[in-house]
């Protein structure tokens, strides 16, 4: 069994948070036939989170530090990665 480096581990793991900007999502399921429009995106209004069907509600974009590990790693050069994660 080959040794798994921390870098390989980071490259293979996605954490529970997602990549910003938040993607528009079209949600399938029993409710899809009810929805009168095809637009659907995650939104936040007065810090209440919901799926916006109007296309006009406020968006929330997670800061870069809360992106997935895969996206974080992709944004680093080899040198930057080694400098920040010298223990890998």
């Amino acid at each position, binding site marked *: 069994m080959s040794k798994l480096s921390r870098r390989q581990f980071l490259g293979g793991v996605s954490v*529970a*948070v*997602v990549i*910003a*900007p*938040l993607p528009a999502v079209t*949600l*399938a*399921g*029993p*409710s*899809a036939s*009810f*929805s*009168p429009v095809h637009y*659907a995106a*995650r*939104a*936040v*209004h*007065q*810090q*209440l*989170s*919901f*799926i*916006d*069907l*109007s*296309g*006009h*509600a*406020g*968006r*929330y*974009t*997670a*800061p*870069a*530090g*809360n992106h997935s590990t895969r996206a974080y790693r992709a944004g680093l050069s080899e040198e930057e990665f080694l400098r920040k994660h010298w223990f890998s």
Partner: protein
Amino acid sequence: MVDFTKGGPASGYFAPLRYEADVYDCEVEGVIPRELDGAFYRVGGEYFYPPIREDDSPFSIDGFISSFRFKNGIVDFKARWIKTPRFLNNLAARKQLYGVYRNPFTHDPSVQHLDKPYLGTVMNTAPIAHHGKLYALKEDAQPFEMDPNTLETLGPWNFNGAYKAQTFSAHPKVDPVTGDMICYGYEATGLCTDDLWIYTVSPKGKVKHEIRIKVPYVSTLHDMVLTQKYLIFPVYGYVTSIERLKAGHLHWAWDQTKPTYWGILRRDGDGKDVRWFKGPTSSVMHTINAYDEGDKVIVDAPISDGNPFPFFPSVDGSPWSPKLAQHTLRRLTFDMSSKADTYQEKILDPQDVVDLARVDDRFLSLPYKYVYSMMADPTKPYDAARAGANNRVVNTYFRYDLSNGQWLKYFVGDVHNLQELSFIPRSATAPEGDGWLIGTASNYAEMRTELVIVDALTMQEQARVILPFRMTPQVHARWYSAQELPLTDKPMPPYKGRVQS
């Protein structure tokens, strides 16, 4: 299995929390005023299981209560789900059994209870304390009593059977002169009924007066306001019907053709004297204050000209308008000596404000000077690199002086989004406005909740309490002192384990 990828909370700061919390002796920056002996209670929502439909309102979220207990400059934090029958039924079934916002026709048949829609409540809107008891409120059911120290759910309360309405508003008012609580339920006799039942509860918790009236049309009646003579109820914009619910829609839709009505009736009457004043379409989700001025009734409120919530659709299919959803501080004048059924409406200031305004509660129903609320001040810095790009944040508390129109502002920080504040008087005899503002902010960069205490006279920050995590945003929050609730000094239950001798 719980899967939030198909709806419900967003990601990042708004990703599901899914835990209850206790933090003893919280981290504090600055100095907490030693006079603060009480608790700041926040009620909001946190989905335990995701909603079943993408178009659901966030007001369907499971109720969640938290408290910051202050004593001798020390703060302890606690957070719990409110254990409604809905929460417990879902947990027993290990899935979401309930449908969309206040529509039992969309619930699983095992929990539908069409004749008892209150059994589907999520109890996620506001706290209130009266007669030494703490309650969580949601306007589709009677209040749930909560233990003010442990935040355990004690269950629904009907005031020993004297409170007859099926529902109870999230915005009762406590008269500072008499100590009475004025509370009410709309849709009081069941789904989509036009019954508005109003109650006066004594400082000892006894129902002492009931008034039953009908509303011009069934609408959300989220808040009310009172003077020393009158009770005042706004009816506006949102509509519902049994047919609408049977069709599977959310409880409310916005009808731009509906006029605004203000019902005014004597506090000591039987409701037959109610007068409905009619005005243009608007939304009055929340009020500020009201008082008598001779034969006139003065009402202040943050009012918008259209639908404030993008998740409640229009009946005509028209798109939601962010512009019509903007709120301004407005003053309405009702002439009770006139036979006319209209009123005067004046915009006090054109600035867009959050419609969660508060006053020094000792001046509720009385002439007063200061309004406190929040706004998104675009002149203040926002660190998009740390807090996320393009997020509209409410970054400023303000004090608006009704006597001269002056604004005094407090800026919370460049990565923060504020939530509703409370005013705490410095002492029982302090003049109006002498005290502190207290409220929480979401720190988008550090992914944590912070509580700020601001001197209400200078609008300078006194202290900041740091939670080591993000806590679910509230809907409403209130401060209550140790004179108003039986608060204990011990933060945690006594240790009963073994010790080495």
